[in-house]
């Protein structure tokens, strides 16, 4: 795929090369190069001998594949089921979609126009099967349209390369004198079956022929299933900012959801750019909703992140994670639901600051203080609710315990004086110790136990202090002291 913007002039022979076994080989060639007798697959040095003015660029297969993957999504403007076909093709299941564009022939013209606007040259064909479309697009007449009853006739004249076989099998068939697909069709099935009984699909002309003639099913597996709820807005000319169109799109989508008695938890806003690319913005809600004002508000800061390129002319809004939703009314006068307000608040906060910023602490079954509290999503259902510990716990807990320097230690109890955050604290009263042993099923071997003390210093501040380890417990040197929290 060559873009028009950076393609070289057509009269200079130019090829794309890739690394082969014995030096670079030709991956693709432009029209001037092909006229000079240069064929893909031959070695670059040989072709230089034929055509001294040949220009060589290196191919980018991964980039081509990624571009083709984006083009697959872009092609959903014509029909909902699209899939990439090998390295150089697209398959569109246009069943039931052609009449929207004025029939199959008019649809092919429209597709070729749109693709040429992107600077892509395309060979198009309509056929009842994947295999027939593949062959007709590559070896058939321009924009051929093949009905279901004329597949055999139209394929018959095409060369055997149109059967999607690997190179060795094609060579074998040619050596057998079978140069066209029609010649292969004339061979009795029994002899073909006997000859290729152990061959795989790529090397089996009979199976490939059956696929092309619709005797063997080959369904189009789309990249991802089409969502059921989707609204779109086609624009007369490319624009850069979708904001003015969002309220109407949201209203239309919510109307469709309401008709079906459904609500959504995700919204995908997609813009189809004129330069052949698509941009996404996704938002999620914490509860099923179909309120257009609320959904529109979630896009408030995100629309700016769309990369509009050279503008876009089609906006679609899709509802994801569609679930059944029933209207709830908990007041006789039709008033609003309190829960609903809370879920909307969480949605707004999550949309602005990210879902990780809005959490709810829950208690877990553990004696280790930092493990006794876990974070769950703000409105997640509580799986297992732990119980609050019987012992007194501080109001504030530090994420990382802070080590203190002990100035004056006593054999029992907490240190009499210590320095924490460059201030000297003298312990006036204390309660404890409360011994918390490491959880051997989670902690690494060698983790030391902790003795927690609630200490009050001379100014009345109450801290939660712990000693990590014991003297001569064989797990490191002298025990160290940490501040882990603050009491009220």
């Amino acid at each position, binding site marked *: 795929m060559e873009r028009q913007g950076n393609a070289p002039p057509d009269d200079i022979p130019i090829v794309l090369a890739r690394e082969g076994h014995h030096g670079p080989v030709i991956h693709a060639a432009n029209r001037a190069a092909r006229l000079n007798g240069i064929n893909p697959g031959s070695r670059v040095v040989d072709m230089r001998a034929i055509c001294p003015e040949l220009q060589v660029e290196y191919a980018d297969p991964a980039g081509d594949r990624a571009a083709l993957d984006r083009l697959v999504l872009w092609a959903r403007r014509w029909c909902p089921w699209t899939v990439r076909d090998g390295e150089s093709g697209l398959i569109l299941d246009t069943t039931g979609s052609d009449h929207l564009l004025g029939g199959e022939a008019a649809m092919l013209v429209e597709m070729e126009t749109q693709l040429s606007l992107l600077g892509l040259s395309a060979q198009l064909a309509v056929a009842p099967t994947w295999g027939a479309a593949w062959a007709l697009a590559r070896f058939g007449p321009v924009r051929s349209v093949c009905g279901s009853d004329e597949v055999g006739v139209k394929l018959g004249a095409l060369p055997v390369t149109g059967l999607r076989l690997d190179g060795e099998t094609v060579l074998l068939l040619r050596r057998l004198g079978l140069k066209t697909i029609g010649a292969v069709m004339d061979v009795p099935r029994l002899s073909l079956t006997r000859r290729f009984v152990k061959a795989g699909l790529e090397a089996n002309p009979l199976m490939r022929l059956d696929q092309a003639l619709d005797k063997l099913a080959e369904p189009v597996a789309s990249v991802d299933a089409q969502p059921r709820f989707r609204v779109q807005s086609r624009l007369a000319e490319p624009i850069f900012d979708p904001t003015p169109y969002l309220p109407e799109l949201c209203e239309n989508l919510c109307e469709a959801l309401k008709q079906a008695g459904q609500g959504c938890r995700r919204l995908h806003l997609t813009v189809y750019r004129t330069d052949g690319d698509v941009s996404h913005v996704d938002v999620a809600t914490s509860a099923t909703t179909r309120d257009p004002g609320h959904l529109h508000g979630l896009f408030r800061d995100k629309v700016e992140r769309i990369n509009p390129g050279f503008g876009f002319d089609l906006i679609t809004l899709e509802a994801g994670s569609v679930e059944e939703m029933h209207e709830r009314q908990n007041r006789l006068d039709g008033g609003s639901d309190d829960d609903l307000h*809370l879920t909307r608040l969480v949605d707004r906060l999550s949309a602005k600051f990210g879902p990780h910023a809005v959490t*709810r602490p829950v208690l877990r079954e553990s004696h280790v203080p930092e493990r006794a509290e876990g974070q769950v999503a703000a409105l997640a259902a509580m799986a297992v609710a732990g119980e*609050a510990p019987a012992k007194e716990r501080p109001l504030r*807990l530090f*994420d990382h315990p802070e080590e203190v320097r002990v100035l004056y230690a006593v054999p029992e109890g907490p240190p009499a004086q210590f320095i924490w955050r460059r201030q000297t604290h003298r312990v006036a009263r204390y309660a404890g110790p409360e011994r918390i042993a490491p959880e051997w099923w989670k902690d690494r071997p060698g983790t030391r136990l902790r003795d927690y003390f609630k200490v009050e210093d001379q100014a*009345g501040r*109450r801290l939660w202090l712990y000693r990590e380890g014991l003297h001569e417990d064989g797990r490191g040197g002298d025990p160290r002291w940490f501040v882990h929290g603050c009491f009220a």
Partner: protein
Amino acid sequence: MCMGSLRVQKRLIGQGHHPYPIAHTLSEAFPETATDAAAVGFVLARLPRTNAPVLWVQDRLSRKEAGRPYLAGIGTDRPLIMVDLSRAADVLWAMEDGLRCKALGAVIGEVWGDPPALDFTATKRLALRSEAADVPCWLIRRAASPDLSAARERWRIASLPAAPHPYDAQAPGLPRWSLDLFRSRRRAPGQWVATYDGSADRLDLSAPVRDGAVAAGDGTARERAAG
């Protein structure tokens, strides 16, 4: 003169003094030191006794310097919705957004220092929103100077040595705080010493100036004379 103890939840709200019930509003709490959890304890003691969730918004420095609220110590009767943000402007935005939601029991914000975003206008917006939604809003400001603000009540709170423990002489008992209401729109400012009983959720206030304690030998001679 001994003021005795008052039930703060009942009396401070002022039942007989005001012709109309006072709505919840914005209050500011200034801890004396950054690591002092007395302000958090006081704010939690003053929250209305409902099971409505509490929106708790922290900025990064508050979380780093003063720790995070610990559910095991606070108790699980009110669900907490924690919002961890990095900038003070975001904290104010989230608090204001939370005050649009009447289902919340309270909105608590922690802002470190004196950021430019936290000016008179921002506090005025919070106060008006809080009164319109009738949701109490508390702003805990550490390492901050009490500049111009529209908060209806402003408290300065510090820890005091705890009350004696009933069973253990060397252990701290019920926490005591010194409260300084240095600006209030509703009542006269004042200073109190508060004792908080967490198990009963009861806050007792007493005036800091009181009579001297009765000495051990006082009155014994008269008793003996009478006997």
